[in-house]
């Protein structure tokens, strides 16, 4: 079994530095609790190059945010058991000391959080917080850092940045706050930017602006971007590659257009079915995924998705007993499902696609 996993083509062959900018290999983040071991992330692997965008999609509790916080080293080492490898530009982070990772945080890798109001300190001005972020990694005077903060605010599209720099977070609107958050995250030119549901807390009209902004800045900085979301519509606009997570595992991984055009996992079908489409008749109902996301303490046996999967019965009991492996279904396109490849192609073409 390990043999097959290592030859599944996801770069898990051997150890040592990777040629990719970001290479996550068999990442496991488990939290021991009084109720049992919570396997938030369980054997996740993916790669990302500079200038590219990876969309990580999944329901609440699928392990998206835990993954991103794990990359940044923001889990308390006492609370979380982390194994696997995270290679960032030739440096391994899981085994690195807390101090080494701290030095990289904010400088080499930065993060934009979901709710910009609660994610910014209410007692400090926007400027103070950006200046602080800049001065952690750059030995400059306050005046220089302030000028940089004003530049950054201007760059993310905040009008009159020289005045707004002295405002407090509560004096900004939601969209402006998220822009300021982005300015703060980008203040040290990070090469990896992780955006954890950056538009979820925002007005719909502002969401597209913020996404455009992230993409524009990505081009300027040539940074790698991980976009975490539960909204397939968001990743459709911006991602080069998509990783679909379920129950702490990757269930489908591939180029964005492939995932949308030829998804090969029933969970991805469900996600696509529950996405509203403007180009369809409004009388048609959305197709929700039945059931609720699995408990990460008692992950269902076999395929974690089997209790909610309409096709689980077709595998002669394997869905309930055997964990499906993430296998290459087409070059560069991986899915973890017990259904035969041809069977999935047929179900997709005949049963699922026409209803979307």
């Amino acid at each position, binding site marked *: 079994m390990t043999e097959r996993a290592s030859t599944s083509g996801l770069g898990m062959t051997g150890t040592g530095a990777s040629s990719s900018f970001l290479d996550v290999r068999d990442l496991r983040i488990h939290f021991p609790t009084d109720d049992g071991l919570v396997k938030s992330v369980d054997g996740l692997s993916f790669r990302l190059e500079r200038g590219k965008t990876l969309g990580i999609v999944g329901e609440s509790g699928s392990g998206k945010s835990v993954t991103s916080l794990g990359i940044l080293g923001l889990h308390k080492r006492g609370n979380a058991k982390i194994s696997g490898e995270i290679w960032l530009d030739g440096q391994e982070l899981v085994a690195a000391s807390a101090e080494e990772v701290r030095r990289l*945080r904010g400088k080499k890798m930065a993060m934009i*959080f979901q709710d910009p109001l609660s*994610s910014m300190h*209410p007692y400090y001005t926007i400027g103070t917080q950006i200046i602080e972020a800049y001065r*952690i990694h750059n030995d400059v005077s306050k005046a220089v850092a302030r000028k940089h903060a004003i530049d950054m605010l201007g760059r993310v599209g905040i009008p009159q940045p020289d005045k707004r720099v002295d405002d407090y977070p509560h004096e900004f609107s939601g969209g402006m706050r998220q822009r300021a958050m982005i300015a703060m995250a980008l203040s040290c030119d990070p090469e990896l930017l992780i955006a954890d549901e950056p538009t979820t807390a925002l007005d719909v009209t502002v969401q597209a602006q913020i996404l455009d902004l992230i993409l524009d800045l990505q081009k300027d900085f040539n940074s790698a971007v991980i976009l975490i979301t539960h909204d397939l519509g968001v990743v459709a606009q911006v991602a080069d590659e998509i990783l679909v997570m379920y129950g702490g595992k990757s269930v489908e991984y591939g180029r964005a257009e492939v995932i949308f055009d030829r998804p090969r996992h029933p969970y991805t079908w469900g996600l696509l079915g529950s996405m509203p489409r403007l180009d369809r008749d409004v009388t048609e109902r959305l197709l929700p995924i039945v059931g609720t996301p699995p408990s990460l303490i008692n992950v269902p046996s076999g395929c974690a998705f089997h209790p909610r999967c309409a096709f689980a019965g077709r595998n002669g009991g394997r869905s309930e007993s055997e964990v499906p492996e993430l296998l290459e279904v087409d070059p560069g396109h991986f899915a973890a499902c017990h259904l035969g490849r041809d069977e999935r192609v047929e179900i997709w073409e005949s049963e699922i696609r026409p209803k979307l």
Partner: protein
Amino acid sequence: MIAYVIRRLFTGVVLLLVVSLATFVIFFVVPRLAGASPDTLASRYVGKAPTPQAVQAVKERLGLDDPLIVQYGRFVKGIVAGNEYKAGNDVVLCNTPCFGYSFRNSVEVWPQLMDRLPVTASLAAGAALLWLLAGVSIGVVSALRRGSFFDRLGMTTALAGVSLPVFFTGLVSLALFSYYWEIFPAGGSYTPITENPGLWAYSLVLPWCTLAFLYAAMYARLTRAGMLDTMNEDYIRTARAKGLREGAVVTRHGLRAALTPIVTIFGLDLGLMLGGAVLTESTFGLPGMGKLAVDAIRGSDLPIVLGVTMFTAFFVVIANIIVDLLYAVIDPRVRLG
């Protein structure tokens, strides 16, 4: 901001008036409702075995036969402009601010208060410094190492500190440190700071520690609860994500936010204490405001009791105003309100 300050100062003045009215009612109206005549009322101001002449004189000086509203007006006027207590041709002057006149000892109350204030202020300032430092740091460490041995030890000690009355801890510390080991002076030895700062601090170490133990315990629990809350906030995660060192995350981001309620309580505690730490001063025989009040009650010297009451209330009101203004400095979101 300026409008906020002005509004707050205005409400402060109104509060002070209310306080003076309440004090007046307690000392001059309630006894009447309880059936005291101006004569019996006046007899309470002249000591335990009053002569009829003395009672008559006090009644005249205080104008106890006047309508209540006139009496209250005179009471307030005394505070802002001073008073004259007349009995026939004999005039007793009470200078601004007139907090009353002790007819028993023929002294004005205000200078008495001012005389005792430095002692109480010394006690309060030293103890406050101690309990802030100890309480906040124990609270922070307890919160960061929640469930550890330090946390449990700290919180158990804090529970003891909150539960044990000052007259117990004070007496125990006196018994141990001044009578048994003879490290610190026994009660009743106070040296003003102006005379000898070293002796001043030496004579106050035990009272400081005793008082600080009680308050440090409360502040440790308060700080711990506040830090547990703020360290789970999203902005702490942001600060860490910026690559900030953990020490700076805790102090600049965590503690900064957790301090807000502590500042509020601290202002009130300090204001209240300036009106006299009655138990501590009595236990250690310190000649402060609290001791003054206790002695006055024992000797039924009502004007002094009234004076200390008013003075304490004023301090609390003023402390409240300062806390509110400080609040606006600490939490920028308050400025709008």
